[in-house]
């Protein structure tokens, strides 16, 4: 099994490396560069050449990539386009804030999603299932920005519990932006539950219809014991991968939610950087997010290996 883990790990590294190449090439391929962004209309002739030399943009792409990649591995992301701030510093607190958001959503959402999914699957086509499934479909169809906007409407404007617009700096202690945190993670949790719940429901239904559950019934095993000892362990195995995908989605969907709530996280930073054409920041944030995604998937794969006996055994025979 150690061999399999090592292989997954190596593949993960390859993927991260590929991401870095894609990002770098993507940025390279775009017309213009940091200098044209800074100089804007003055970007030509002498001024342009001087700027490029100053910023090191006249060296060949491969060298620049190597330098950047080396830096990334050490956690050094360079300076932002304006040359003013160290990206690492900018990013540090925002990573914390975004992680808080994701963690909050996961901590509440995953257990809830699993519970609802199992209940819906066991009560197939009866009222709990219809209720939860319909709720899930509705939650899935509402875009994040809509849900976010509606929440602000309700909680900030009608009820006045939280201020509508707040500008909190990124490095403020979490307590200061707690209201936004609650609202943002509520939106994310809702959407996440909808997705995960449906997958778990399908998985539970399939497990309960399986031959081994039928055999357990005919062995005289009581219903709840079948559910917890026979069906669920098999039904929840695919959930691991679903949860990993959800984490990935969280990292992506966070962007819109952070914008709506003005939440000081990575997503907000990303959108601002794109608007300002601050490409080094864009590169850095994308790398971090992508690496996190690959890392999460790797953990999920390893967990799957550990928990699913069929994947583990090299001596597995065909049934």
């Amino acid at each position, binding site marked *: 099994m150690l061999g399999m883990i090592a292989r997954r790990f190596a593949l993960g590294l390859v993927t991260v490396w590929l991401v870095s190449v894609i990002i770098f090439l993507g940025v390279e391929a*775009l017309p213009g560069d940091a200098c044209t962004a800074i100089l804007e209309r003055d970007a030509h002739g002498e001024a342009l050449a001087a700027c490029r030399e100053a910023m090191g943009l006249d060296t060949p792409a491969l060298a620049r990539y190597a330098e950047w990649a080396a830096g990334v591995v050490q956690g050094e992301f360079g300076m932002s386009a304006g040359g003013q701030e160290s990206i690492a510093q900018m990013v540090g607190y925002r990573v914390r804030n975004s992680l808080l958001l994701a963690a909050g959503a996961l901590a509440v959402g995953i257990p809830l999603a699993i519970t609802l999914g199992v209940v819906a699957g066991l009560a197939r086509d009866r009222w709990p299932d219809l209720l939860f499934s319909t709720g899930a479909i509705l939650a899935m*169809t509402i875009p994040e920005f809509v849900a976010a*906007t509606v929440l602000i409407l309700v909680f900030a404007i009608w009820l006045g519990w939280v201020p509508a617009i707040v500008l909190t700096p990124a490095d403020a202690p979490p307590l200061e932006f707690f209201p936004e945190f609650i609202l943002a993670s509520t939106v994310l949790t809702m959407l996440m539950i909808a997705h995960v719940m449906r997958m778990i429901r*399908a998985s539970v*239904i399939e497990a309960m219809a399986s031959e081994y559950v039928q055999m357990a019934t005919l062995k005289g095993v009581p219903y709840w014991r079948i559910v917890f000892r026979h069906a669920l362990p098999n039904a929840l195995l695919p959930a691991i991968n679903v949860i990993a995908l959800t984490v*990935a989605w969280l990292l992506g969907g966070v*962007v*819109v939610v952070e914008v709506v709530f003005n939440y000081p996280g990575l997503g907000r930073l990303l959108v601002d950087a794109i608007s300002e054409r601050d490409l080094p920041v864009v590169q850095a944030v994308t790398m971090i997010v992508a690496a996190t995604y*690959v890392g999460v998937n790797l953990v999920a794969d390893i967990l799957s290996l550990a928990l699913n006996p069929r994947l583990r055994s090299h001596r597995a025979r065909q049934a």
Partner: protein
Amino acid sequence: MSGAAISVRARAGGVLRDMLARPSGAIGLFLVTFHLALAILSPWVVPYDYKAMDATGTLAGPSAAHWLGTDHLGRDVLTRVMLGGREALLITGIATPVALVWGGLAGVWLGLRGGWPDEVAMRLVDAFLALPGILPLLVLITVFGTGGEVLLPTLAFFFGIPVIRVARAAAHEVVARDFISAARARGHRPLDIVRREILPNVTDTLLVEGAMRWSWMLLGFSALSFLGFGVSPPRPDWGLMVSDARVYMSLAPLGVIAPVVALSTLIIGINLTADALAKTLGLDRARKAVI
């Protein structure tokens, strides 16, 4: 059991009938058809010009003249809501089939080919999927502009990548079966095998996947417009309308609620349709023999 010829059209007719028999299918298809009709017919039906600004009342509530009120520039909300789906449906309506076709063909080919082209391609797919969803779109749009000619290929390309995964898995499942071995043993060319043997068995999965992709793409499109990277003002678009109107939510909530309802009903319709399609085609759960 009829011995009648089963042509593609007849089968499609049968599937449609089965879908309409289910409540989810009926509601879903109704909503989708309604929106499509609205998008096509609205320019002739709307009461006002979407640009026309009524100086007399901005952020007005519902009235006889303006059934849903006006927005912050005095434009008629009803008109803008009715027209708001056109751009989104047009662009996503073209981009989704394109994404399906390119992702589907690539996935099927990879599923067959195997070997190292498959390994390399899957690493690339993983890498692209690792990028935070909206990011590549934002970057490309920032640089190249927000016109339809940028949005369409961008959406089609990036939304086709997850389709590769699904198509590849479906192809794997089909390739393992004996009728493919039989075709290989007869000596059919690989392209013929893909066309005649594999694709017909994979289209079901791809259809359902396509419906889901479409709803995702619409959500993504609206999110882009919301962030200001999609449809450019003054053209009406639901996402854009929500973004504009949310600042004035406390004064004129209809400006937010109307586009939200429009978008949500369309998405619900597509999701219900996809659900019903999956159940009709038997893709949600394998049916066991009763005896």
